[in-house]
């Protein structure tokens, strides 16, 4: 029996590798399993190599990483192209297409000799039963369903649905191809039963989606009425989802001529009183810099999603990295603060996106939502979400006496001034990028500038005590502390489990609010900490550096930071932790080398 299975499938672009993975994870979701699926392609738009990586488990899955339990190769050249993304170990069960002509004891894998290897005539089976090699993915699904015990019923339903239009014969052929996979598996049982056990929380079906669609859905839930943006990988699906949905609510999706105009339209929509958002990735964020500054000084609410990819510049457009945090916090010129939030998973993208809108509207500010390529494009099972538990915040509008001698930028105690919008009688004012007085009139006065800067910064103070935007796992008094964020937080969570298993006394802090730095939260966390790691996917260890600006991070807390594309593995974390602990024990004053990758 298994409770956690990592399956990797690779082949050529047309092999249906991804659709095999999708039918498996869909089946798993319907049966109540937890799962994450990631896809990876060569740089070609079409016809290159394709792979997917599927992690299914009986308890929550924290990340898609780790060496494969099962490797499926439809051809070896393509499989090998994914290198470190599909790591095979000796314990990996290898299933491959017989017609590759490779013998099971001479697999073209450097330095590993997997002990369980199946050469399967996949194409031949597809052709024989479904009458077409296109059914290869159906055979693969059958094989996996057979060996690992998931999805038999749901995949059969899927086959019937998918091919219904093509007539009974085609349906039948594909059902037979699937069955052939099942049969093959039955005929070649694994020595050890590796079927997935029952889901721990029962067989209730889960939702299944990716981070981009989740973000878009959350925006609709939060009341977003306007999207302005420009396509860019890996964020485009947010706009695409909204374009399919938002019109139904009287909203608008505006594909602008560039990212500047996209955010410009969002700024306009917000000025006009609507909840508005944009979504982009690194290069687009860079172009939005000036407009974000305008929104900050004009105190206009909006949500700006940055689905991070590898940088700098065009960088690695289809790979994840966490290297846009500095930019999120500091790209604009002048003194200006905008909150930065980051979800840790597809599921988490829902509450964090809703929170982004709430913070934007409450504090009258642009909010940067930092997702990343992995979260945004991975398929993940999600437990049903009770939306009635969520509060939706609306901006504070002026009323009654406030409109009598209306001052848009009134210096209030909270720093938040009631905000009007065109159409509201008596609320007329001049919004501007130039410094202004309470009434919005332009000024060059140093005194007024200082007051307005104070207002624009101090209004965010309450955010620093939003402990609900931080997750701490482990004992409060643990001497070893991990900090991690975004998609890598799932890796840190798994590392935490492993470290505890090895008897380390360790805890983990996951901030979802990255900026402003919540000093009290970090200070409390570090109170007990003697050594530890910031685990993050960037060359510069951006969160580590950012926190240091405001918090005295204990000297023995070091960054474990790596450039993107190759994900950090739980094992990497564990190893660093072990080294750190050993060094500390030998020489508590020693300052180990920085671990920046």
């Amino acid at each position, binding site marked *: 029996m298994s409770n956690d299975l990592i399956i990797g499938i690779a082949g050529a672009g047309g092999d249906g590798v991804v659709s095999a993975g999708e039918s498996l994870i869909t089946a798993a979701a319907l049966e109540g399993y937890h799962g994450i699926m990631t896809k990876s392609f060569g740089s070609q738009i079409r016809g290159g190599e394709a792979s997917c990586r599927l992690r299914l488990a009986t308890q929550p899955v924290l990340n898609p990483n780790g060496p494969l339990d099962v490797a499926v190769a439809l051809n070896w050249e393509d499989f090998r192209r994914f290198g470190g993304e599909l790591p095979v170990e000796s314990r990996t069960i290898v299933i491959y297409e017989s017609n590759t002509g490779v013998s099971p004891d001479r697999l073209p894998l450097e330095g590993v000799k997997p002990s369980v290897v199946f050469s399967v005539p996949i194409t031949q089976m597809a052709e024989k039963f479904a009458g077409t090699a296109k059914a290869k993915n159906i055979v693969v699904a059958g094989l996996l369903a057979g060996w690992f015990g998931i999805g038999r019923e749901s995949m059969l339903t899927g086959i019937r*649905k998918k091919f219904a239009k093509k007539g009974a014969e085609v349906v039948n052929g594909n059902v037979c191809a699937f069955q052939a996979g099942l049969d093959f598996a039955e005929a070649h049982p694994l020595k050890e039963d590796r079927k997935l056990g029952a889901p721990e929380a029962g067989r209730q079906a889960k939702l299944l989606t990716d981070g981009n669609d989740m973000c878009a859905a959350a925006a609709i839930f939060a009341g977003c009425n306007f999207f302005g943006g420009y396509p860019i990988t890996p964020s485009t699906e947010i706009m695409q989802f909204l374009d399919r949905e938002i019109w139904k609510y009287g909203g608008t999706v505006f594909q602008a001529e560039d990212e500047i105009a996209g955010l410009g339209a969002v700024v306009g929509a917000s000025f006009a009183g609507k909840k508005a958002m944009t979504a982009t990735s690194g290069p687009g964020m860079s172009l939005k810099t000036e407009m974000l500054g305008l929104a900050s000084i004009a105190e206009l609410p909006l949500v700006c999603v940055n689905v991070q990819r590898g940088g700098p510049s065009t960088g690695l457009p289809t790979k994840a990295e966490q290297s846009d945090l500095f930019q999120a916090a500091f790209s604009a010129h002048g003194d200006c603060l905008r909150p930065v939030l980051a979800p840790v998973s597809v599921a988490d993208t829902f509450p964090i996106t809703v929170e982004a809108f709430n913070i934007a509207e409450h504090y009258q500010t642009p909010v940067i939502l930092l997702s990343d390529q992995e979260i945004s494009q991975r398929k993940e099972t999600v437990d049903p979400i009770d939306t009635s538990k969520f509060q939706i915040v609306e901006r504070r509008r002026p009323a009654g006496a406030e409109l009598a001698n209306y001052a848009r930028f009134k210096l209030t105690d909270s720093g938040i001034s009631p905000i009007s919008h*065109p159409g509201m009688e008596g609320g007329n004012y001049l919004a*501007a990028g130039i410094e202004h007085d309470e009434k919005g009139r332009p000024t060059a006065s140093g005194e007024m500038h200082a007051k307005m800067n104070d207002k624009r910064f101090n209004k965010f103070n309450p955010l620093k005590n939003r402990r609900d935007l931080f997750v701490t796992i482990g004992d409060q008094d643990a001497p070893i502390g991990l900090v991690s964020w975004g998609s890598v937080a799932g890796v840190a969570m798994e590392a935490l489990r492993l470290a505890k298993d090895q008897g380390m006394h360790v805890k983990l802090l996951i901030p979802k609010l990255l900026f402003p730095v919540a000093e009290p939260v970090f200070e409390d966390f570090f109170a007990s900490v003697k050594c530890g790691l910031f685990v993050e996917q960037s060359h510069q260890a951006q969160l580590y550096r950012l926190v240091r600006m405001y918090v005295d991070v204990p000297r023995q807390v070091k960054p474990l930071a790596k450039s993107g594309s190759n994900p950090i593995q739980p094992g990497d974390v564990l190893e660093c932790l072990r080294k750190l602990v050993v060094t500390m024990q030998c020489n508590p004053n020693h300052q180990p080398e920085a671990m920046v990758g």
Partner: protein
Amino acid sequence: MNSVETLPVERFQAGDFKSDLKPIWCPGCGDFGVVTALTRALAAIGRPPHEIAFVSGIGCSSRIPGYTTAYGFNTVHGRSLPIAQGIKLANPELLVLVASGDGDGFSIGGGHVPHVIRRNIDITYIVMDNQIYGLTKGQLSPTSPRGRKTATSNFGSLEDPVNPLLYVLGYGASFVAQGSPLDMAGLAKLIEEGIRFPGFAFINVQSPCVTYGEEDQQLKGQRTRLQNLGAMGHDPSDRAKAIELAREYGTKLYTGVLYRNPTPGPTYGDGVAQRHQTLQKQAVPRHDILKRFIPSPTA
């Protein structure tokens, strides 16, 4: 759809649209005339100030929203059009005006012009074209003539100027006009017409910079050159003729409506409104949106 409903003219006076912020333009700047003409046009239109959103970029000219009582937005250099489009799409009920300078509108902001026009978003775009960068003290503008010496073209400009009238006609604009504060009544009328026009309207205003402008651009210099298209008998529905006249930008100085499409196409807002109507019945409640993610079996 008419973008502006006509209300009894007496409802407002020009003064109702003038704010109490004192303009800090140089004495004699042409932009004083533009704000006057505009407030007259707005009085004629009769929409109350709070139903008007007046957007601008950065430049001397872009200070104008602050001198009116409308909701103003003095944004950043070159980005008034995208912001204005967001406003209009978010609330189609608003009367949306945009003001810009020649640099703001045709240099840094020039990339946004074709798109607002091909979308035909129902806003009125007024460019105060003084052939110079006023606010930054006299640098070469995209409408400065070839050879012109300025603070950044000490040995004379090496490039042909932009032709705002010809460009916007080429982009397919349905309302294109040019005015001057020299003919205040005419300018007010043009702005009013532009606002009433159902769709994107462009008005180029020859608004001289008294501090950094050349002699012949000053109102005095204009006096001898200005030719009124109405008086000339120009038929504004004649697009070919309009293009021909537009070509003379920079040599001749025509005022009036160059082109008014007699059968204007649908605005972007019309398309959106229609789509909203068609699709609204398909909406699931916002709090049920996650139901989209209930998986159904697939192969």
